[in-house]
């Protein structure tokens, strides 16, 4: 199978360094303290944040900082064939831990001792790059919930097929057998929060792919920033008019 054709276009017509179309919506769930939907092409992820709230398990309460828990799951209808995954799906547990560890570094947990922050992420449509879409959606949901955070976060993945580094792989490209590296960055501080890969790759390829993924993160960061500012914008209008009336 040819993943990059002779003209340099991928299966879906993108160039190797093009990210898929990004879409996001905030405050999508009325019952959650914070929520957001994030789409990367056909991959669609919903994140809901509950907290900071009292820890459900008294024994697990940390008196110095907040506990961050994450539950990642894929809806039965998210992939091509309807498949019900059990609660003890190993990949889901691994991704849950990855998301929790990534975002915990970014949350100012020492400001909220004895509390618990629960992040629930569900994949509604799976077309590759779910891990990164999950982190982006969870970040927006945390911002929606007003959880204090050190910096903005953006995540993106890149792979290597047909001798070319490709940004933001979709499901078909993901199944191509090439390596994939997922990167999550703190946008202002330029720190890496997560760098994950499950494949073997040479140093040169690794550097090229990580560089491409980081560029992808920067593009995602710009989009997330615009989304957050638009979400805040309405509040700004109401507040400024209230001030002028006073």
């Amino acid at each position: 199978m040819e993943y990059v054709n002779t003209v340099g276009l991928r299966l879906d017509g993108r160039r190797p360094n093009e990210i898929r179309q990004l879409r996001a919506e905030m405050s999508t769930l009325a019952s959650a303290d914070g929520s957001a939907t994030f789409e990367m092409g056909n991959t669609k992820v919903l994140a809901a944040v509950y907290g900071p709230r009292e820890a459900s398990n008294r024994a697990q309460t940390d008196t110095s900082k907040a506990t961050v828990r994450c539950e990642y799951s894929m809806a039965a209808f998210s992939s091509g064939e309807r498949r019900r995954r059990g609660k003890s799906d190993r990949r889901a547990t691994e991704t849950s831990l990855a998301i929790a560890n990534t975002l915990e570094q970014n949350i100012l947990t020492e400001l909220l001792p004895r509390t618990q922050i629960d992040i629930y992420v569900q994949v509604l449509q799976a077309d590759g790059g779910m891990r990164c879409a999950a982190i982006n959606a969870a970040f927006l949901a945390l911002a929606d919930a007003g959880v204090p955070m050190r910096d903005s976060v953006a995540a993106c993945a890149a792979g290597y097929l047909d001798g070319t580094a490709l940004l933001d792989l979709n499901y078909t490209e993901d199944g191509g057998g090439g390596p994939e590296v997922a990167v999550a960055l703190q946008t202002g501080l330029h720190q890496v929060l997560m760098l994950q890969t499950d494949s073997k790759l040479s140093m040169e390829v690794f550097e090229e792919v990580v560089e491409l993924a980081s560029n992808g993160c920067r593009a995602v960061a710009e989009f997330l920033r615009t989304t957050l500012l638009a979400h805040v914008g309405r509040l700004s209008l109401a507040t400024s008019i209230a001030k002028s009336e006073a």
Partner: protein
Amino acid sequence: MGVAAVEQPPCLGKCVVPGEPIASLPETGTVRVGGGVQQAGRSLIAVKAGVVQQGPGDSLWVCNRQKRYIPNLNDAVVGDVVFCRVEEAARDLDPVLTCMDTAGKAAGFGPLKGGTLFQVSTSHARTLASGPPFLAALGRSLKFELAVGANGRVWVDAPGPANLALVARLARQAEELDAAGAVAAVKEALASGLR
């Protein structure tokens, strides 16, 4: 208004995202830091997504549309049936509530009978508590009683279920409208009700 001219920081009213720098610390003098702002080296950065505002005592804070309430000292809150004040709110302890004001008088605190209770975001509760013009406009034609908690809970009582539903609905809708729009919505509701 005040005696000393306090310089308005240029960042007021700016929409910020987590990690965005708001201001840099001046060489001398003190800067008051409020909720949603943290010090990082020589600059102040936002840690929440919201609008930069100036709070009591010239402090800088970020106002956001939060649903979850974090207790603050001297906030008036509405619990399940009680209007009370947060007396102690240390970071590491459970908050202590009281039904008396600082002088020891009742001052409107205490159990609330009848009426209806609903929830709004903490920022809208703050707007309602500051006495927006649409409530005054409503009060000229309707009799009602309103208790607003900083924790986002609002209690309303009015004679007659129709009036009660009307006041509750208008108070909730005002979150989406600006001040002039809210007053217009009130006028429209009253006009259609009298028909």
